[in-house]
């Protein structure tokens, strides 16, 4: 399989090749989809520790006296609640409430913030933020090439990273600037797998050193395939699949990260959607018999086509087909029986409460 030559590579490209990765084009990058196998990588993250190269994600640095005001205006969450050393999830919306992206913002100093964007939106997010900072005392910089990013996830992730640093790891939704494997790192208590762990933002030049130290410590390299099954089991959204500019945060189940009183771009539309209640909601479902739902499969209620699968896969932890879909509110209750049309075969499914996978006690 040949890969187009104009794809970008992360600083870990050679390390991926050495680890036996299958590489695929993703958001303009040549990224590892799997190494030993999706199932094995998935289990490593659920039961032990895995490491993902997520250097393809974008970073925007905002600094200056008006940095907070610029971000408060653009991001859906209440930035006043973000303390120095904290992390916050939010949506970036258009005026009509349509979701442009979902992102994490880290407050590094009083007037310095780092916002991590999805890889597919890194250029458009930066342009949007820059455009909406005009006339403000804030400097926005596309810092995407300043960082490599590694996600270390799993029940043993913290112990592994703690053994590579002298400092104390940040709690969940907190950050700390530490040395990890001899390299300066912004360590963030965040992730996209439903497991405990940290994400490391590091100098691209140190990426291989840190990656090797994590692998030496027993981390299993994990690719985009496992990242997708892990996040879908815990019903984390994938931008472009589970939401886009046609959906507002209320429909997407992201009302919890919207603080309309701040007056962010799109807040009026979001307030209206919250007030009126969404016509459709993003629900999680599981097949009750064998089969694997895939994105764009039709969701049926009796003879009616009632929606479309936004994300669908085989759940390695549950051993069944799982997915998400936007459905009318009256069909969104857990227990609702549906069918998914998987390439012409109707597969029985049931709406489930989120998350689909919960850690065993």
């Amino acid at each position, binding site marked *: 399989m040949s890969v187009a030559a104009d794809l970008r590579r992360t600083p870990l490209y050679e390390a991926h090749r050495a680890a036996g990765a299958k590489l695929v084009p993703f958001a303009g990058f040549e990224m590892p*989809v799997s190494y030993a196998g999706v199932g094995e990588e998935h289990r490593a993250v659920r039961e032990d520790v895995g490491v993902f190269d997520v250097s393809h994600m974008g970073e925007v640095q905002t600094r200056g006296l008006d940095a907070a005001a610029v971000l408060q205006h653009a991001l859906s969450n209440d930035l006043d609640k973000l303390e120095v050393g904290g992390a916050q999830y939010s949506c970036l919306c258009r005026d009509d409430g349509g979701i442009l992206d979902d992102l994490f913002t880290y407050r590094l100093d009083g007037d310095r913030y780092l916002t991590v964007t999805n890889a597919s939106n890194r250029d458009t997010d930066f342009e949007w933020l820059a455009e909406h900072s005009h006339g403000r005392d804030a400097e926005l910089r596309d810092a995407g090439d300043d960082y490599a990013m590694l996600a270390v996830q799993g029940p043993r992730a913290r112990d592994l990273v703690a053994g590579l640093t002298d400092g104390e790891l940040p709690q969940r939704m907190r950050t700390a600037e530490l040395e990890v494997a001899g390299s300066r790192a912004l360590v963030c208590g965040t992730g996209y797998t439903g497991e405990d762990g940290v994400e490391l933002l590091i100098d691209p030049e140190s990426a291989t050193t840190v990656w090797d130290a994590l692998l030496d410590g027993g981390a299993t390299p994990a690719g985009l395939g496992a990242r997708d099954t892990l996040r879908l089991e815990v019903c984390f959204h994938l931008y472009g699949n589970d939401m886009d500019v046609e959906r507002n945060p209320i429909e997407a189940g992201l009302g919890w990260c919207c603080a309309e009183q701040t007056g962010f771009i799109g807040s009026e539309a979001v307030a209206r959607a919250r007030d009126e209640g969404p016509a459709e909601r993003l629900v999680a479902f599981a097949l009750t018999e064998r089969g694997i739902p895939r994105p764009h499969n039709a969701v049926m209620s009796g003879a009616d086509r009632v929606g479309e699968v936004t994300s669908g896969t085989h759940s390695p932890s549950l051993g069944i087909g799982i997915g998400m879909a936007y459905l009318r509110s009256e069909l969104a209750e857990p227990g609702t029986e549906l069918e998914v049309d998987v390439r012409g075969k109707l597969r029985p499914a049931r709406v489930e409460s989120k998350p689909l996978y919960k850690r065993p006690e």
Partner: protein
Amino acid sequence: MADESYPDGLLYHPEHDWARIEGDSATFGITWYAQDSLGEVVFFEPPEVGSEIVKDEPYTEVESVKAVSDVYAPLSGEITEVNEKAGESPETINDDPYGDGWLVKVRLADPSQTGELLDVGAYKKLLEESD
């Protein structure tokens, strides 16, 4: 997962399927290359016994976590037996693609079609060229 291999006695289809000819019947499966490209097979629903399949057309699917792959009929015929065990334990298709991981047995409609398939040398050459 099994090591890469392409047994001598089989006939191969360019869509990465194999056929083991036994008189006017044959057993079909997917090659090592096909299962390796797909990754771990997590779903295989055997087709119906008695259904007619047509050379060069898809007759079933195998699925990994990430992808669905059509399986092409190397020869035309009627399905006489399906591998239910591979349906219950689809990883068999990765572990033993030419043995326990077979997919269907077929009564051939036109045994002379075998002349259009590749022998192992020609199939390996095709793999090298597509690399």
